[in-house]
């Protein structure tokens, strides 16, 4: 594209970059001595777990580093110009014209009170001398380029009127409107559903090829890496531990950390486990429905159907997976069965008792039969109470003495492989994976028959995810529990579920033994989910 640099010279050349953390941080450097290059028209994936410093590299390149962090060494050459040494005014010129960024959460990255067209127009007005008529033409053109229908309507829309995928397309349009040489995409598809993710990945790929843009794609997902990367850099605690062509690195990882990460990616092939089909049914739902009335003071408001006509059953000792995208109603079903919300219709039969319409007091003795583990380990434990207090609360609600409850808590901590010393500590002293283990221990403390895991491993890093999955499966086997496993991730479901139900728009569209559904999906939506699963052509988790 640009005349002064030969095509082979890297568009981004990071040399020995070191970014210092404040003295109170857990390590000295957010990024230490990192080297990284992105060639024109090349897509480089930067992979790492949370806290590895991958977002810091994006921020320091864009000149958006938080004030507490400081780049203390190295150079970041953008087309040969060191952006670390650039003045703020020069950085402002460079942003959007030569380097652009797409963020993870398009809802917060777009200004909610400006129309999408105005936001793209602002970029053009700031950086070019175009007249307003030409800016409008260019805006319509780029919106068409990113595959959005009806550009005339799009530029008049506010961000909240668009879907998540459409918003991310607007972000990409805004980033690419001035044909920058470098695009930094920081987890741009993490907040999106898998089918939308597939479309956005294809779009980034297409734009990169068409315009010869160098792309630095930050992700934690090896599926995405296998899907789009040409070269991969693996980041661990601020250090680039391995860098190389994607195929080679995925097939023959050299560094042990890379090997561990790749081995931890769950396989899409369901594991084999023989299940007893005559075990007693722990919970069964029939015609379960939940609708939310959108409040009106008078007259009839609209009704949103979160789940309808859901029929499922879980036997002792088996794991039923519910998979689906966000808004499919899978969490609504889980919360109905745990009776955290009241279903609007249908039955929930727990050991012969219909709990769907029981009141608070009648429900309390039955609550101990069903326990739930939530997605966000950081919000699932009361930060003001010690782990011990959280663990003994349940047993003591059902009449256990403090001593007996504490003894149970110790035993459970041992079961989830945490030290008994954890009892006197507060949740913030633990990592996400450890907290999730505590949540599992709390759920087991009152000896439930049914354990519901509502996206329980989705917020965890892939290596931790593998451990928690193994733990859940082990506990299910050891205590002969029935488990309801809610997830959006087909790979995760393949590793723990015996049967699976696929939900779309509040309904179960397909269900059956997991091997059958995975090998031979019948419903259109199930097929679409499998087609969109990132890295499906790559065999992960087969060692």
């Amino acid at each position, binding site marked *: 594209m640009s005349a002064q640099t030969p095509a082979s010279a890297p568009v981004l050349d990071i040399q020995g970059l070191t970014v210092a*953390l*404040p*003295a*109170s*941080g857990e390590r000295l450097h957010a990024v230490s001595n990192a080297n990284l290059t992105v060639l024109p028209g090349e897509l480089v994936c930067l992979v790492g777990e949370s806290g590895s410093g991958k977002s810091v590299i994006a921020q320091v390149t864009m000149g958006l580093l*938080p*004030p*507490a*962090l400081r780049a203390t060494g190295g150079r970041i050459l953008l087309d040969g110009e060191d952006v670390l040494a650039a003045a703020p005014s020069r950085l402002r010129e460079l942003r959007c014209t030569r380097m652009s960024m797409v963020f993870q959460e398009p809802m917060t990255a777009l200004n909610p009170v400006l129309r999408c067209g105005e936001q793209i127009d602002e970029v053009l007005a700031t950086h070019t001398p175009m007249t307003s008529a030409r800016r409008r033409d260019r805006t319509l053109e780029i919106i068409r380029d990113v595959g959005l229908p009806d550009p005339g309507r799009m530029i008049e829309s506010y961000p909240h009127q668009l879907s998540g995928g459409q918003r991310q397309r607007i972000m990409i349009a805004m980033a690419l409107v001035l044909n920058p040489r470098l695009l930094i995409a920081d987890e741009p598809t993490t907040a999106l559903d898998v089918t939308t993710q597939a479309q956005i990945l294809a779009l980034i790929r297409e734009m990169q090829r068409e315009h010869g843009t160098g792309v630095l794609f930050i992700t934690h997902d090896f599926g995405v890496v296998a899907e789009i990367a040409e070269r991969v850099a693996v980041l661990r605690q601020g250090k680039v531990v391995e860098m190389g062509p994607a195929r080679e690195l995925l097939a023959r990882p050299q560094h042990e950390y890379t090997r561990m990460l790749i081995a931890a990616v769950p396989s899409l092939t369901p594991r084999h486990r023989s299940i007893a089909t005559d075990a007693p049914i722990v919970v069964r739902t029939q015609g379960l429905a939940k609708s939310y009335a959108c409040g009106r003071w008078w007259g009839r408001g609209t009704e949103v159907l979160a789940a309808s006509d859901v029929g499922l059953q879980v036997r002792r000792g088996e794991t039923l997976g519910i998979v689906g995208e966000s808004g499919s109603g899978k969490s609504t079903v889980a919360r109905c069965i*745990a009776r*955290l919300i009241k279903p609007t219709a249908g039955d929930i039969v727990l050991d012969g008792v219909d709990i769907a319409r029981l009141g*608070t007091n009648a429900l*309390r*003795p039955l*609550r*101990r039969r*069903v*326990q*739930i583990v*939530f*997605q*966000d380990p*950081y*919000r*699932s*434990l*009361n*930060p*003001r*109470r010690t782990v011990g207090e*959280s663990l003994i*609360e*349940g047993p003591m*609600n*059902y009449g256990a003495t403090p001593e007996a409850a504490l003894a149970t808590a110790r035993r459970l901590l041992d079961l989830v492989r945490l030290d008994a010393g954890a009892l006197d500590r*507060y949740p*913030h002293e633990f990592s996400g994976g450890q907290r999730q283990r505590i*949540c599992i221990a*709390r*759920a087991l*403390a*009152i000896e439930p028959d049914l354990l519901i895991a509502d996206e329980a491993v989705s917020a965890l890093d892939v290596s931790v995810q593998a451990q928690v999955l193994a733990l859940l499966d082990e506990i299910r086997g050891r205590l002969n529990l029935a488990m309801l496993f809610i997830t959006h991730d087909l790979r995760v479901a393949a590793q723990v579920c015996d049967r699976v139900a696929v939900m779309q728009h509040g309904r179960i569209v397909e269900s059956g033994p997991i091997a059958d559904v995975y090998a031979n999906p019948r419903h259109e939506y199930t097929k679409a989910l499998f087609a969109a699963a990132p890295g499906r052509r790559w065999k992960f988790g087969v060692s």
Partner: protein
Amino acid sequence: MSVTADALAIGEPAVLRTSGVVRRLARNPTVVFGVFILGFIVAMGIAAPWLANFDPAAINPSFRNKTPGAMESVRVDDGVRSEVRHWMGTDSLGRDVASRVVYGARASLLVGVSVAVIAVGIGLAVGLAAGYVRWLDGVVMRFMDGLMAIPAILLAIAVVSLSSAGLLAVIVAIVIPEVPRVVRLVRSIVLSVREEPYVEAAIAVGTPTLPLITRHILPNTLPPLIVQATYICASAILIEAILSFLGVGIPAQTPTWGNIMAEGRTLFRVYPHNILYPGIFLALTVLAVNLLGDGLRDTLDPRMRKRL
């Protein structure tokens, strides 16, 4: 403060370890300044009988409207005469302004603290109920909206005029318009906290409603409530002074800063000291309480802190 520490604090607004909080408060200059001034005013109110040269209610028709620093020769019971100074002069009835100002601190602090405690107590209970019990919410909040629509001073005047003027009537009159603000604050916190997974997890392990509220929901409301209480205290001190100034507050013979200023109003152009000195103390006290509140907010409620 580093960003990482900030981010941590925001992720964990809840952890309140007392020693740490006290240490952080002691390092905050606005808190130290506020506490220093408030301590001075409180000490003044407590030590009023020893600090005051004269009986604050004693009228002296022969020594009216003296400017600050005037000396009066006083004969004590045993016949000895001595010269006593009117540090802040005397008012139009010959009462010693300095003594009245010193005693006036008692009324102001008493009203401020009791209004804050009562308003927070009532507001907390009503707010918890409104936030937790769905069907109560609409009813209670519309009633609170109605209360907030009436100007606080007007409402207070109306309440005082319904009963006989006195300290209790004034406290009740100021509490009523403050309660809706507390209810709103508590209710909004309850509404967001009750959706937290840890509250749902507690419901799932069978925790009865009352322990659920006191263990898991109530503690989240305390840090912002402490901050709100200081603002209520400051505004109560001001409203009490305004009511007294308007002549509908605490009876005129009781020394309060508002009463002293009301008395000095007619001769303000000739003898400004009657309004000046109580005014200075009133302003200082309100400033100190507000500074303390700002400091507490920064320390206890990091979500409201201006981000650097």
